[in-house]
């Protein structure tokens, strides 16, 4: 077991967007029946075959660290949360497509995780000082996931897609839309490709279940 390499991925986002459900889905291959508020950090592990089928195949343990809370909470919680952000290999940012504020807060979440958040604690305000340059040289890959697409009425879907297009542009990422049938959680992904030339890093095949 010790021979397998360690990959630590943070899962960040506002409360109630579906982080715990997502992590449970990825690791246990099941839908989470009774989601409840995450206190502190909950970790789950997924075994992943990197470059499956090729001679360079290697099995990794991907640790998904699901950190609970909100961006605007007191500084004591923030500084305690910061212990989880050490030596991170990747960040998954989750936002709720039915809730605009959760998408806006993603900027602050990413800044907090990359240890560059200097804004004071207080009531959540809409962001006005986001700097795109900060993500240009960011070595940590980001994955943006939007949840609850199925709960959006048909006439509003094009607006939501426009909004996420802007979001992926801000994070300097490419956008891939993916639907997973048979699950309540319909996801679509926005990839940031800096630092990785291998598109198959995230294995979509293993997500389809009967």
């Amino acid at each position, binding site marked *: 077991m010790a021979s397998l390499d360690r990959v630590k991925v943070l899962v960040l986002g506002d409360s109630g967007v579906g982080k715990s459900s997502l992590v449970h889905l990825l690791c246990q291959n099941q839908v989470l029946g009774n989601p409840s508020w995450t206190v502190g*950090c909950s*970790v789950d*592990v997924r*075994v992943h075959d990197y470059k499956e089928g090729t001679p360079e195949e290697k099995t990794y343990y991907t640790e998904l660290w699901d950190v609970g809370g*909100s961006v605007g909470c007191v500084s004591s919680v923030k500084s305690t949360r910061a212990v989880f952000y050490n030596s991170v290999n990747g960040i998954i940012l989750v936002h709720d497509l039915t809730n605009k*504020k959760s998408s806006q807060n993603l900027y602050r979440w990413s800044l907090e995780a990359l240890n560059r958040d200097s804004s004071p604690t207080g009531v959540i305000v809409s962001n006005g000082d986001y700097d795109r340059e900060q993500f240009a040289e960011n070595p940590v890959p980001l994955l943006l996931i939007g949840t609850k697409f199925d709960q959006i009425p048909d006439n509003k879907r094009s607006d939501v897609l426009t909004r996420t297009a802007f979001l992926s542009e801000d994070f300097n990422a490419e956008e891939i839309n993916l639907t997973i049938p048979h699950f309540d959680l319909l996801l679509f992904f926005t990839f940031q490709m800096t630092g990785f030339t291998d598109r198959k890093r995230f294995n979509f095949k293993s997500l389809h279940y009967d």
Partner: protein
Amino acid sequence: MNGYGPDLHTIVDDIIKALTVHVSFFQVRQYVVQVVFSVTFAFSCTMFELIIFEILGALSSSSRYFHWKLNLYVILLVLIFVVPFYIGYFVVSNIRLLHRQRLLFACMVWFTFMYFFWKLGDPFPILSPKHGILSIEQLISRVGVIGVTLMALLSGFGAVNCPYTYMSYFLRNVTDSDILALERRLLQTMDMIVSKKKRIAMTRRQMYQRGEDQNRQTGFWGMIKSVTSTQTGSENLSLIQQEVDALEELSRQLFLETVDLQATKERIEYSKTFQGKYFNFLGYFFSIYCVWKIFMVKFWSQHISFILVGIIIVTSIRGLLITLTKFFYAISSNKSSNVIVLVLAQIMGMYFVSSVLLMRMSMPLEYRSIVSEVLGELQFNFYHRWFDVIFLVSALSSILFLYLAHKQAPEKHMAL
């Protein structure tokens, strides 16, 4: 969280935060719940506004009287008819069996509530016999009893907790190394959880690759298979899973303890600044006032006591909202969020109505008349005495409770 100082900005901030965060956290979708909560809050605040107008002499007295009456009718309508009905409705909707005829069951729940609400009037001497059955005094008196009990409980606890919190922050000396040690323990626990989960994942994967699925025991052959092979495998798994559950609980506790220590350290640092020293002084003043209030009943100056009581009420409302929010986070889920917001609205409305009742006691004589006129001939003295009794009971129980909690605390920190 600057301590107990009356920083109005922080108070308003906290109230708004508690309300905003609460509503957005659980994504209350039903507009009726949002509307009902907002209406209750708005009309409750209007009542306080009217008291201030009364004192300032703003608006003509006839229009003030009209608005008082209007406000009161709306609030009573909401608190006695609308909110309890919707609470019953949403509780019934959550129960699968009753879902079909939820309207009928909601009405039944409401009638039960009305029955007990009415019965509340019996043991208390709150009405004089000349009142009719359907008068407004009947309703207010009962709402008043519930709200006054709530207020007295909270004030009693607050009066004891305030000086205790102040003392405890100066007796506890939190250093950076304490926090670092706790954080290290937390990360070690997380690493242990990760390694155990890796074992579980790897074992499951190996079992799956061998063509066995432990979760399904279909039919006769499935049972035979599971008995003969990898019986130890599944036992191992459930054992490790139990260990993981225990470790996760521990990690949560450690997280909360670390947050607590960080908050304490920040408070101590803040108390060394100028702003902190100013609030410290006010805090001492308030603590002494609170302790004094436990033992004395008469105030020496009506006007000053009115302002002080007003401030105490505002800060205890803040404390009420924060405490209720914390409490409800512990027990709620996505399904019950509607019910919780409505219960919060009910408690808040009753609390505010009784604040008005009690405020009459501290108001200067010339302003008491409007409150008495509007609320009718209630036995105000009863409410004051009832408040004092419950206040004393709450304060004494809080002293006992805090003493017991304090005794446990040193043992916890010894483990560091």
